[in-house]
């Protein structure tokens, strides 16, 4: 290589290098334990400013939380075992930020932006730094939710539709399919071709690493990982890392929203996040309130979820949809954190353990679940079939207690129960099999119009399989018409009707022979 070339490149690189004298506000560690420190000095430090702990084993970063008369309370992000009493602490004048960019797609990172997978280091030059705590977009820059975010789950897309920019809570007991639901939603995003697929961000807070590894494997094998970013604060990480993980995930989402893209962020789960904040707050000696949570626990979640938004055209038109997850204890949704987050979000998807044990999966309770803004984003086609579905299901629920005396009931009531049973049956869905919304529309159309009443409940599943197969093979054109127009015109309805009738007929014939 040419020697002059090397010199020229070096010169170019060193153009911005101006070594000077650096002045910093410093302090000394007074006490440290459980990731929380008390620091003396630091008279100029600001709240939530990033601090640098200079230890004998290199630098560790932290955040100033409590500014008291003579000391500063801070949490340490990362390994705090190397920090000793008397160690120097430098204020940095910056708020904690997270490196964000396209390069993160397909990666698993920790809440500080360090990669946890084996795909090599992230090149920081390609990444922008986004502050972890940022003010949510204001009223002027927002617009109402207008585009649907199809989840691929029949029960959700029909009865509790989610729009882009919405915040929808997923709530339920442990081991009931909350995470499974979230993963299915991520898997569906590549199928939905009418709108641009959103970037999915899965934030695992205090989750087992083995569970996250399994999820990543699943996403990879189904090709969804290239559209997904996983932020992991595992069960063995310290509470401060759990605490910042959702904010880091939100910062990634905001980056894509600012670029005019759609993003979907899943916080799994916010009850663990509340625990970590409770731990840090109690160690900082903040006064405990209800259930020993600090007084600002509501604000903690509301400021996080408020950052989900649909921006208007002038601001790029991007959106950030948030799906927080809350784990309840013994189905108690009136505990402190569940009620808080229910009131913050635009609706909730309630997973009922009783339904789960009856074998209804997803165990979604249509009665207790709501979506407060999503219906305005629902496609016309779905609206046409789903409004009747909701009504029929509600009537069925009222009559459910009488199911065992079905033979003694009058004709009309029995019919209503029959219809309800079949509709409940078509809303069942196995894991990892999201269904595109146009197919959902066709199936629900068959259900609410009574075509399935002629089939025994046990054969609904078989009908669904055959019907979808038939639609795929023969009616591709009709499907794409529904998909592209998002509407169910009279002409399509006629075609759909004949398709359903044909399929039912074929199934009955096969049964006879």
């Amino acid at each position, binding site marked *: 290589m040419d020697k002059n070339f090397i010199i020229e490149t070096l010169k170019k690189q060193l153009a911005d290098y101006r*070594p000077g004298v650096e002045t910093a506000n410093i302090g000394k560690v*007074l006490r440290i334990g459980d990731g929380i420190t008390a620091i003396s000095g630091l008279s100029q430090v600001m709240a939530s400013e990033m601090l640098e702990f200079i230890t004998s084993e290199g630098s560790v970063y932290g955040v100033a939380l409590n500014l008291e008369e003579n000391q500063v309370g801070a949490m340490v992000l990362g390994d705090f075992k190397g920090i000793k009493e008397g160690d120097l602490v430098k204020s940095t004048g910056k708020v904690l930020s997270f490196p964000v960019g396209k390069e993160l797609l397909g990666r698993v990172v920790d809440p500080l932006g360090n990669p946890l997978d084996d795909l090599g280091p992230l090149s920081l030059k390609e990444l922008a730094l986004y502050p972890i705590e940022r003010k949510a977009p204001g009223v002027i820059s927002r617009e109402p939710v207008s585009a649907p975010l199809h989840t691929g789950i029949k029960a959700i897309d029909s009865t509790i539709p989610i729009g882009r920019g919405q915040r929808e809570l997923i709530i339920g007991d442990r081991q009931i399919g909350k995470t499974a639901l979230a993963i299915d939603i991520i898997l569906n995003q590549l199928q939905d071709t009418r709108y641009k697929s959103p970037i999915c961000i899965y934030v695992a807070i205090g989750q087992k690493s083995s569970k996250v590894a399994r999820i990543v494997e699943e996403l990879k094998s189904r090709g969804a990982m290239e559209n997904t970013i996983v932020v992991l604060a595992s069960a063995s990480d310290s509470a401060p890392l759990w605490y910042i993980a959702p904010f880091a995930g939100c910062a990634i989402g905001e980056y894509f929203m600012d670029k005019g893209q759609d993003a979907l962020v899943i916080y799994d789960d916010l009850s663990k996040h509340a625990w970590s904040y409770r731990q840090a707050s109690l160690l900082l000696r903040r006064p405990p309130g209800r259930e020993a949570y600090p007084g600002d626990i509501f604000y903690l979640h509301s400021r996080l979820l408020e950052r989900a938004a649909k921006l208007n055209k002038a601001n790029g038109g991007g959106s950030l949809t948030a799906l927080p997850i809350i784990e309840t204890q013994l189905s108690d949704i009136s505990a402190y954190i569940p009620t808080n987050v229910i009131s913050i979000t635009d609706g909730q998807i309630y997973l009922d353990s009783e339904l789960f044990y009856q074998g209804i999966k997803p165990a979604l309770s249509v009665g207790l679940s709501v979506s407060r803004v999503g219906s305005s984003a629902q496609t016309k086609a779905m609206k046409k079939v789903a409004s009747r579905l909701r009504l029929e299901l509600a009537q069925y629920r009222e009559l459910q207690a009488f199911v065992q005396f079905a033979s003694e009931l009058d004709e009309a009531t029995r019919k209503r129960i029959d219809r309800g049973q079949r509709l409940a049956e078509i809303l069942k869905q196995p894991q990892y099999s999201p269904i595109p919304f146009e197919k959902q529309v066709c199936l629900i159309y068959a259900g609410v119009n009574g075509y399935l009443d002629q089939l025994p409940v046990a054969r609904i599943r078989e009908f669904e399989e055959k019907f979808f197969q038939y639609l795929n093979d023969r009616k591709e054109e009709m499907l794409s018409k529904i998909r592209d127009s998002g509407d169910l015109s009279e002409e399509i309805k006629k075609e759909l009707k004949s398709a359903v009738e044909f399929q039912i007929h074929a199934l009955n014939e096969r049964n006879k022979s």
Partner: protein
Amino acid sequence: MKITPFQYAIFLYQITLKTPDVKKKVNDFLGILAKNNDLGKINEIMREFEAYEKKQRGAEDVEIISARPAGPALKRQVFGLLKDGGKPEIKETADPDLIGGLTMIIGDTMIDGSLRRKLRELKKVLS
């Protein structure tokens, strides 16, 4: 009400300020600490007291850290720089990790002019 070490330190400073019998006052003070069950805070109180007393005198802690023990010429130069700013209480330490240059800590401000920091910055620019 809980009394913080800082409050104790101010209290101790005030009672010992203009008294001929410091020993008795300190004894009384320890009695109060014992009565309040706060003897465990004595180390923190002493640290706060030291800092508070210095502040009242208008003195400021200055620590000069250099790579090699500072020679007399350097010392004179630094003292000359500091003599206008109150009453500095200078402490010198040598830290070979600095490689070269000088780092000063005045109160809770650090002025880092060390070669180590400059090299680190250079590394950042080149990477």
